[in-house]
């Protein structure tokens, strides 16, 4: 059975698309047949981050409206095996996505033998975001160390536990994971930024990973290459750790301490 994984946040611009691209690539590299779907109808961007923008012919709305088959719309990633991208529509209005239509697409993907279906949610808590999470088995809640992002994540957690198909059918709840992104350990050290512990305590969801604020993310988006493919980049490695944890491996958190400062130097060297 395919695992439907939604990447969501409530707040916009926190790193959902970056995360969807990285996590789906990582899962595919681990041998899982993976599809990543852009649910941001009207604001398609996942294609750019994945580097497949020039090969987009059909999109998810074409499939739902019967204008193209799923196989015609799915774009196979050239660099990563087992990885397929289903773009969002750039032109059609948001109402073109229907609950039934999305359900049918997910079912077809499951029948095609996909192991993971990653859903890149649009921002907000309205229809588009609710549709992206409706069928989810697992959710990655992307959160920045910043008050409005934490608050919106909490609201999204409430929606995940009450408005999903699993909630409506009284099935076991969506498995929730907290992913903290754009984390700056230096600023946490100086007391300017919420810490990993603070955020975990407030949101009370198991921590999947911490992605540091990193130049590599901008470089990756410039190149159209998911940052996880950059094996030397801190953010790439942090995403690789998160994927390993998602697949059940235990890995210690990295990139959560201020740069170049060991535990002891921080203990004695402050002032």
């Amino acid at each position, binding site marked *: 059975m395919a695992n439907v994984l939604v990447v969501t946040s409530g707040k916009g611009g926190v790193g959902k698309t970056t995360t969807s691209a990285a996590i789906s690539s990582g899962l595919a590299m681990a041998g899982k047949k993976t599809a990543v779907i852009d649910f941001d109808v009207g604001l398609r961007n996942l294609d750019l981050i994945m580097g497949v923008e020039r090969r987009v012919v059909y999109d998810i709305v074409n499939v739902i409206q019967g204008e193209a088959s799923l196989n015609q719309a799915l774009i196979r990633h050239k660099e990563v095996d087992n990885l397929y991208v289903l773009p969002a529509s750039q032109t059609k209005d948001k109402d073109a996505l229907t609950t039934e239509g999305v359900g049918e697409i997910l079912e077809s993907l499951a029948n095609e033998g996909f192991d993971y279906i990653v859903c890149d949610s649009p921002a907000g808590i309205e229809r588009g975001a609710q549709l992206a999470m409706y069928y989810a088995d697992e959710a990655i809640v992307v959160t920045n160390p*910043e*008050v409005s992002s*934490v*608050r919106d994540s*909490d*609201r999204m957690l*409430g929606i995940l536990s009450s408005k999903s198909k699993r909630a409506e059918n009284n099935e076991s709840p969506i498995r929730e994971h907290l992913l903290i992104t754009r984390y700056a350990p230096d600023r*946490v050290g*100086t*007391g*300017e*930024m*919420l*810490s990993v512990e*603070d955020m975990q*305590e*407030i949101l009370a969801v198991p921590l999947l990973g911490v992605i540091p604020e990193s130049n590599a993310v901008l470089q990756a988006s410039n190149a159209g290459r998911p940052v996880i493919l950059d094996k030397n980049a801190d953010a790439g490695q942090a995403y690789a750790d998160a994927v390993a944890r998602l697949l059940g491996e235990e890995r210690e958190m990295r990139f959560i301490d201020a740069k170049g400062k060991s535990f002891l130097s*921080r*203990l004695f060297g*402050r002032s």
Partner: protein
Amino acid sequence: MGLWDMFRPRAQDNSASVAKERLQILIAHERARGQDKTPHYFPEMREEILGVIRKYVDVDDDAVRFEVDHNEQYDLFELSITLPDRQDDRRAKKNT
């Protein structure tokens, strides 16, 4: 205060700790409200009912209790009023 906190900047100039405190309060409030199944018209209805009662008796705000009980099949709306002493009551009527 844990050992760790001694090595952290002081609370006053630590804006992250302010952020954490504000979030904890706000989120607790929002979670509680999320579970509150009181109908949206309830506060207005409450005020109106209170107005009607006060045409006849002089009651305090806390003498009137409004409660909604949620059962499987139906919601039960309960209203209970503690009337003032009879003498107070008469006085109240004279005043209005």
